[in-house]
C-alpha cells in the first residue's frame, strides 16, 4: 500500500440485478434493450388498485446469494415502502426492505491485491431485495427540453449488498468487486453486466487522519455512478486525494459537515458534488400493506445450501491441490466453471496439470479470444488436448511441433493425434539422423563453434533455428544438447 498520511476507509453498496425472467412483483419481462415502455403493466406503472405479488424465483436467487456470502438468512422477512419523488419511480415509493432484510450479516474473503498469498475479508452488513426504478433520459444540451422516461426497468429485482467499511484501498475495493462478481456469476444469479447496469456500485468513503495521539475522521462522501471496475479504482483514488486536500484547506471533520453525495465523472476523472435533495434522508419507511410477510423454512434453506455447487474459493483450492500455483489457479477459475471443467477433464485424462494450465492460458485462451467464442464452443476437446500434452510430456512430440498439431486440429476438428501427425509429417528422428544433422550444422557454422568453445553458448540458439529448417521434426532441446556435446568433445 502507498504510504499516505491517512487511512482510507471504504464501504461498498452493490446493486445486483437478479436474473429472473419477470419483475419482482409483476409478470412483465425483465429483458434488457427492449423498445421503451413496452414491458409494463398496471402494477409496475403504479396504477391505483394494482397489487404486487412476490416473484418466488427472485426470493430463491436472493437466498442462494446470501448463503454463498455466508449471510444469516431471515426466517421471516417483510417489505417496506421507501418514499421519495422522482419521475422514474411511478408509485412515489420504492418497495424495499428496511428492518428485516432477507439476508443478515455475512462476509466475503478475497485475495489481497497488494500482498501475495494474503486474504482480505469484507464483512457484510446485510443484503436486501428491492425493486429497480425506471430510466430517465435528460436533455444533454441546455437542460430545457423535457426529460424522457422509460419504465421498462421499473420493478426489476435488485439485491443490494451492503458492506462494512472494511476496505482500505482503491485496489482492495476493486478486488472485492471482482471476487463478488465472479461468485455471482458462478451462482448464476445475475449476468453481472456492468455496461447494462446489472451490477452497480456506490462507495461510502472517508479518511482517518492521525493527529498526534488521536485520529480525525473526514466527512463521509457517497460516490455514485461507478460503472466499471476501473471507475471504482480511479474514483476512490481521486476522492481520497480530494478529501485530504479539502481537509488541509478547511480542517472540517465528520462532526462538522453532513454526508455528501458526489457523482463520478469518468470522462473528466473527477467526483462532482450532487445537488442535495431536500430532506433527502427522510424516506419515511413503513411496512407495505399491499404485501404479506415472507417465511423461509429451514428445509428450503437446506435445499438451497445443497444446490450451491462448487464456488470459486473451493475450486481455486482444488486446482492448487492438483498442482497449480495460486496465480494460475485463479486465472482458470476466473474464466468460469466451464473452463475449470475443461482443465479437470484434461488432467483426469492423464495430462500433467501444469502443462494443461499453461496451454489453457496461452493457446486455448488466445484462440477463444481470436474466435470470440466460449470454451463450450471450442473445437478441441479436453481429451484431445490431454492426448497431445501427454505425447509432449513423453517426448514423442516436441513443444513447438505440438503447437503445429494444435493449429492443425483447430482447422481440422475431425483430426485425431495420429492423423494430425501424419498430415504434418511429424515422425520421430532417430539418433543417427540427429547426429548427422548436428555435424552438418557445426560444419556450416565455424564461428558459433569457436564461440562455444570459448564458453559463450548463446550461439547454440541460432543452430536450433537452422536445424528446424533442415528437419522440422528435430527436437530443439536435443539439437542443442547434442551440438553442445559434439563441440565440447571436439575441443
Amino acid at each position, binding site marked *: 500500500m502507498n504510504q499516505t498520511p491517512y487511512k482510507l476507509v471504504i464501504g461498498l453498496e452493490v446493486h445486483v440485478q437478479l436474473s*429472473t*425472467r*419477470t419483475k419482482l412483483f*409483476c*409478470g*412483465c*419481462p425483465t429483458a434488457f434493450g427492449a*423498445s*421503451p*415502455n*413496452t*414491458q*409494463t*403493466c*398496471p402494477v*409496475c*406503472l403504479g*396504477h391505483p388498485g394494482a397489487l404486487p*405479488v*412476490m*416473484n*418466488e*424465483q*427472485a*426470493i430463491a436467487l436472493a437466498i442462494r446469494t446470501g448463503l454463498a456470502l455466508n449471510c444469516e438468512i431471515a426466517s*421471516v422477512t*417483510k417489505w417496506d415502502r421507501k*418514499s421519495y*419523488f*422522482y*419521475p422514474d419511480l411511478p408509485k412515489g415509493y420504492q418497495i424495499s426492505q428496511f428492518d*428485516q432484510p432477507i439476508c443478515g450479516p455475512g462476509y466475503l474473503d478475497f485475495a489481497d491485491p497488494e500482498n501475495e498469498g494474503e486474504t482480505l475479508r469484507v464483512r457484510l452488513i446485510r443484503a436486501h431485495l428491492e425493486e429497480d426504478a425506471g430510466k*430517465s*433520459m*435528460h*436533455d444533454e444540451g441546455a*437542460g*430545457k*427540453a*423535457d*426529460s*424522457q*422516461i*422509460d*419504465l421498462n426497468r421499473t420493478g426489476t429485482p435488485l439485491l443490494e449488498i451492503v458492506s462494512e467499511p472494511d476496505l482500505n484501498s482503491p485496489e482492495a475495493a476493486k478486488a472485492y468487486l471482482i471476487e463478488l462478481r465472479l461468485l455471482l456469476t458462478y451462482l448464476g444469479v445475475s449476468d453481472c453486466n456492468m455496461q447494462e447496469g446489472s451490477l452497480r456500485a456506490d462507495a461510502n468513503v472517508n479518511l482517518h487522519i492521525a493527529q498526534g495521539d488521536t485520529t480525525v475522521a473526514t466527512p463521509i462522501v457517497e460516490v455514485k455512478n461507478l460503472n466499471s471496475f476501473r471507475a471504482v479504482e480511479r474514483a476512490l483514488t481521486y476522492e481520497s486525494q480530494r478529501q485530504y486536500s479539502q481537509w488541509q484547506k478547511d480542517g472540517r471533520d465528520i462532526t462538522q459537515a453532513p454526508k455528501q453525495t458526489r*457523482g463520478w465523472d469518468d470522462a473528466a476523472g473527477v467526483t462532482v458534488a*450532487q*445537488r442535495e435533495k*431536500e*430532506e433527502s434522508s*427522510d424516506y*419515511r419507511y413503513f*411496512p407495505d*400493506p399491499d*404485501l*404479506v*410477510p*415472507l*417465511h423461509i423454512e429451514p428445509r428450503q434453506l437446506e435445499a438451497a445450501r445443497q444446490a450451491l455447487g462448487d464456488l470459486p474459493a473451493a475450486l481455486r483450492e482444488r486446482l492448487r491441490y492438483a498442482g497449480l500455483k495460486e496465480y494460475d489457479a485463479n486465472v482458470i477459475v476466473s474464466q468460469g466453471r466451464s473452463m475449470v471443467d475443461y482443465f479437470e477433464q484434461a488432467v483426469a485424462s492423464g495430462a500433467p496439470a501444469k502443462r494443461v494450465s499453461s496451454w489453457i492460458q496461452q493457446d486455448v485462451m488466445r484462440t477463444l479470444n481470436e474466435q470470440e467464442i466460449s470454451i463450450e464452443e471450442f473445437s478441441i476437446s479436453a481429451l484431445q488436448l490431454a492426448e497431445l500434452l501427454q505425447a509432449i510430456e513423453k517426448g514423442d512430440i516436441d513443444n513447438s511441433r505440438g503447437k503445429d498439431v494444435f493449429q492443425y486440429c483447430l482447422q481440422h476438428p475431425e483430426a485425431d493425434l495420429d492423423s494430425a501427425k501424419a498430415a504434418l509429417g511429424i515422425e520421430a528422428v532417430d539418433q543417427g539422423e540427429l547426429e548427422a544433422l548436428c555435424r552438418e550444422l557445426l560444419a556450416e557454422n565455424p564461428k558459433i563453434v569457436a564461440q562455444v568453445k570459448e564458453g559463450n553458448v548463446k550461439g547454440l540458439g541460432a543452430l536450433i533455428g537452422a536445424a528446424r529448417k533442415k528437419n522440422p521434426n528435430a527436437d530443439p532441446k536435443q539439437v542443442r544438447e547434442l551440438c553442445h556435446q559434439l563441440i565440447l568433445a571436439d575441443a
Partner: protein
Amino acid sequence: MPITSSQVRKVAQLARLELTEDEVQLVSDQLASIVTFVDQLGEVATDGVEPMAHPLDIHTVVRPDTEVPGLSREQALSNSPNHNDECFLVPPVMAR
C-alpha cells in the same frame, strides 16, 4: 398532542404539497386530533407482543417466475399528461 406549523410544513414539503398559511393552521389542528386519537394505542400494554407486519394472518404469497401479458405501449402512455409516443415526458429534472 399539539402539532407545530413547522412540522406541518416539513410533512407538506415531503409530500410535495403547497399549503397556504391558513391551510397550515387548519392542518395543524386536524393532525393534532388524529395523532391524539392514535396515541391511545400507546396506552395498551404490548410487552412481549411481536410487531405485526400485516393484519392478515397469511404469509408467503408468491407467484411463479412466468411472463404475464402487460400493457401495450400505447395503453401504457395513454394516461400520461405528456408523451412522445415512445416515452413519458416530464419537465426537465436535474441529473440524479
